[in-house]
């Protein structure tokens, strides 16, 4: 009986050491640029949560809209009250999957191209989207970088005609999340 338990325990231990893990960060950086030639508009959110499962490729990014930091108090106020209505929709979430998971080896240091596909939920509107980025593995750290565009109109974000020349119709989003294994 003891032998069986010993062997079983050994099997479980070996299995878990090879099992793929959950990677996670609470201090990811997500920034956006929505300016034009007339005006610089950019903001950064330094408390993005990113979590992904290396075994299934399921990945999720979550941010609190109120966490975006601006240089101008007025811009921040308009962003929250008029455009994003952050009291009504406090979070923006992307839930998706790494579609080329088989090309990424989380056990081997290196930089891999990654394609992610899923649902973006902003301002109460859910929309399917796809983006490419890079996944850089260094030991237990996985750095995810991505740049993609989001069209305001797709998420019912209305730009008043008064400022339409100052605000871009498409925002450029930059993601920089340094994930570590969730213990």
């Amino acid at each position, binding site marked *: 009986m003891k032998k069986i338990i010993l062997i079983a325990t050994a099997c479980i231990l070996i299995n878990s050491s090879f099992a793929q893990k959950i990677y996670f960060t*609470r*201090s990811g*950086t997500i920034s956006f640029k929505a300016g034009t030639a007339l005006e610089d508009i950019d903001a950064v959110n*330094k*408390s993005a*949560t990113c979590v992904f499962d290396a075994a299934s490729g399921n990945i999720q990014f*979550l*941010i*609190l809209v*109120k*966490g975006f*930091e*601006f*240089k*101008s*108090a*007025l811009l*921040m106020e308009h962003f929250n009250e008029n455009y994003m209505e952050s*009291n009504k929709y*406090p*979070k923006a979430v992307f839930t998706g999957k790494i579609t080329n998971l088989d090309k990424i080896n989380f056990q081997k240091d290196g930089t891999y191209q990654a394609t992610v596909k899923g649902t973006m939920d902003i301002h109460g509107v859910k929309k399917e989207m796809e983006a490419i980025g890079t996944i850089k593995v260094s030991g237990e750290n996985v*750095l995810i970088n991505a740049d993609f565009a989001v069209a305001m109109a797709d998420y019912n974000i209305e730009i008043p005609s008064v400022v339409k020349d100052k605000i871009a119709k498409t925002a450029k989003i930059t993601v*920089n999340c*340094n994930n570590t294994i969730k213990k």
Partner: protein
Amino acid sequence: MKNWKKVLLALIVLGAAAAGYGYYMYNKKPADIRTVAANFEISAAALVADYTKDETAANLKYLDKVIDVKGKVAEVKIDSTTGQATVILDSGDPMAAVTCSFYNDEAASIKMLAPGTEVVIKGKCTGKLMDVVLNKCSIAK
């Protein structure tokens, strides 16, 4: 001076004042939270408990407010690429802690913080994801 000239002068002065005010408001930076008095002084445990009990009510109470939150340091993170400094405070709830994102120039003040130390952190509440998140943080004096 003729009357209409006086009126014109007054209008010009008013116009200039309005433009000046507009320019000032337009360029005004968000408040430095380090200089703002806290709306609430609360423990990390109590803050998380309020959010876990009723997130909508907690948001009504705490969102955008300046909070001096007291708790034990669970983790100090300085991002290797951005220098971004974050302190995680223990709330007693294993599922949700308090995440404090610091001003870039406050990073030095938290480098020496050992896990288990009791601190009071001033920051602005931005809501709850997995944790209750405060940004524009600094060690409360």
